[in-house]
């Protein structure tokens, strides 16, 4: 068993050396496509930060002053619940100050100045309101009504805040996903071609192996490993690129004025690490699929 494993690894390394130019091209293409896949994840996460307040069809947020009294809070709640024909009362959600602070950490992820000014004590709590109507004038009328309630600090409308961003997010998501898929297919094809070329170049060797009684899997495994390694190397390069990209972006965002909303677009390092693990898995999978198909299809050389 050990002899076979060591043979497979030796052959993989030897084949890698023989096809160094093609292997480098396959690695580079995988890296570029995986970098785009990773960037898609980061862009998505950045937009999610921006839109986190408005998840679940929330159309209006009623911000409540931090120093609101129990009576005022309960009056606001009753007023909201008294409109079951216009507001989805079941989905009415109250975020207390602690929950609002957690949410603010994402909204102001890259805006340290604003974040330093906020605390659980000073942040307004909020009611997330899901309107039943699609009539913007009716929602706007409601907002004006709530704005004047005692204890209310302000009312924000989804229509004013995020619709452009939401549309842009959908568009960017569609474009980046499509490009990632196309480039991934290119990477798989290039790995497939590299392995096919390696197999054709070694057709005499493969013929001799088959005639002396090597099993198909014994012949295939070094080639599949080669593709797998190309995919993983491509993923490692893309992880480096993604880390650099995110670092540059984060420091760039820090230069924007607080309150512009751009600060929400910062993605935390822990999330980037998670994306890197996904990229390594996708890279290995792409390499394995490309080389696996080639190693099965071109065994009869």
């Amino acid at each position, binding site marked *: *068993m050990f*002899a*076979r494993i060591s*043979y497979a690894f030796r052959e993989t390394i030897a084949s890698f050396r023989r096809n160094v130019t093609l292997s480098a091209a396959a690695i580079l293409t995988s890296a570029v496509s995986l970098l785009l896949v990773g960037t898609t994840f980061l862009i998505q996460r950045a937009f999610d930060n921006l839109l986190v307040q408005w998840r679940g069809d929330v159309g209006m947020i009623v911000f409540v002053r931090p120093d609101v009294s129990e009576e005022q809070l309960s009056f606001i709640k009753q007023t909201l619940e008294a409109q079951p024909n216009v507001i989805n009362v079941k989905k009415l959600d109250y975020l207390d100050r602690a929950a609002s602070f957690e949410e603010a950490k994402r909204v102001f992820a890259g805006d340290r100045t604003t974040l330093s000014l906020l605390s659980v004590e000073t942040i307004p709590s909020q009611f997330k309101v899901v309107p039943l109507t699609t009539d913007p004038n009716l929602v706007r009328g409601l907002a004006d009504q709530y704005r004047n309630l005692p204890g209310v600090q302000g009312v924000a409308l989804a229509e004013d805040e995020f619709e452009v961003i939401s549309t842009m997010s959908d568009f960017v998501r569609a474009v980046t996903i499509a490009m990632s898929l196309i480039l991934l297919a290119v990477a798989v094809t290039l790995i497939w071609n590299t392995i096919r070329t390696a197999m054709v170049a070694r057709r*005499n*060797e493969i*013929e*001799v*192996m*088959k*005639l*002396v*009684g*090597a*099993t*198909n899997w*014994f*012949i295939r495994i070094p080639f599949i490993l080669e593709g797998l390694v190309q995919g993983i190397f491509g993923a490692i390069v893309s992880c480096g690129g993604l880390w650099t990209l995110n670092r540059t972006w984060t420091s760039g965002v820090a230069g924007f004025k607080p309150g512009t909303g751009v600060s929400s677009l910062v993605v935390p390092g822990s999330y980037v690490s998670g994306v890197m693990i996904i990229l390594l898995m996708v890279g290995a999978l792409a390499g394995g699929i490309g080389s696996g198909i080639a190693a099965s299809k071109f065994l009869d050389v």
Partner: protein
Amino acid sequence: MIRFENVTKMYGSDVAAVREASFDVPKGEFVFLVGPSGSGKSTLLRLMNRQERPERGIVWVAGANINELADSRIPYLRRGMGNVFQDYKLLMNKTVFENVAFSLQVIGRPKHVIRQQVPQVLELVGLADKEDRFPSQLSGGEQQRVSIARAFVNRPLILLADEPTGNLDPGTGEEIMSLLDAINRTGTTVVMATHDHRVVNAMRRRVIQLDRGLVVRDQERGVYE
């Protein structure tokens, strides 16, 4: 050891490479397959090691109907056979030792077995002092000896040789034939396709003659006609 029962092999729908071939090759026999180019000699060898499957008839090897052998079992059938080719099919980037060791390596033989068996077989074929040379540094006859060593290192029951003297001068061809004869005397069944009348006439072994895919002669201690 090998038995053909009414075997027909077609290439395409109208070209019959082998037609209704029937014969037995007992264990330990030396058989020449003779006939002009395109008569079906190589196809018969390829049917014996399951590189080809017949359209009709049955090929038996060591008691097994190899037409019905699952693809996954073919490597194990071939481990009991050695193959020698006219063009040697040596791996030019490997040394003599590595070429011979290769056939043991790919079937997972441990290193200590390889270190023991390869020098023995190189001694047998007279290349013990050239194990570190590359094929390009050897003569045609020496390359064919390496090819025979590679085919025999696993001590196969059957050795299939396709025109092994085809690229060699008569003197070197005789040396190769002596080697195949010596291997046959160890009990290995040898089936050799050739159109070299000198070696057939000199050896006087069983001859199966083919003509356009048909077995037209099967003669004990025959000659090339």
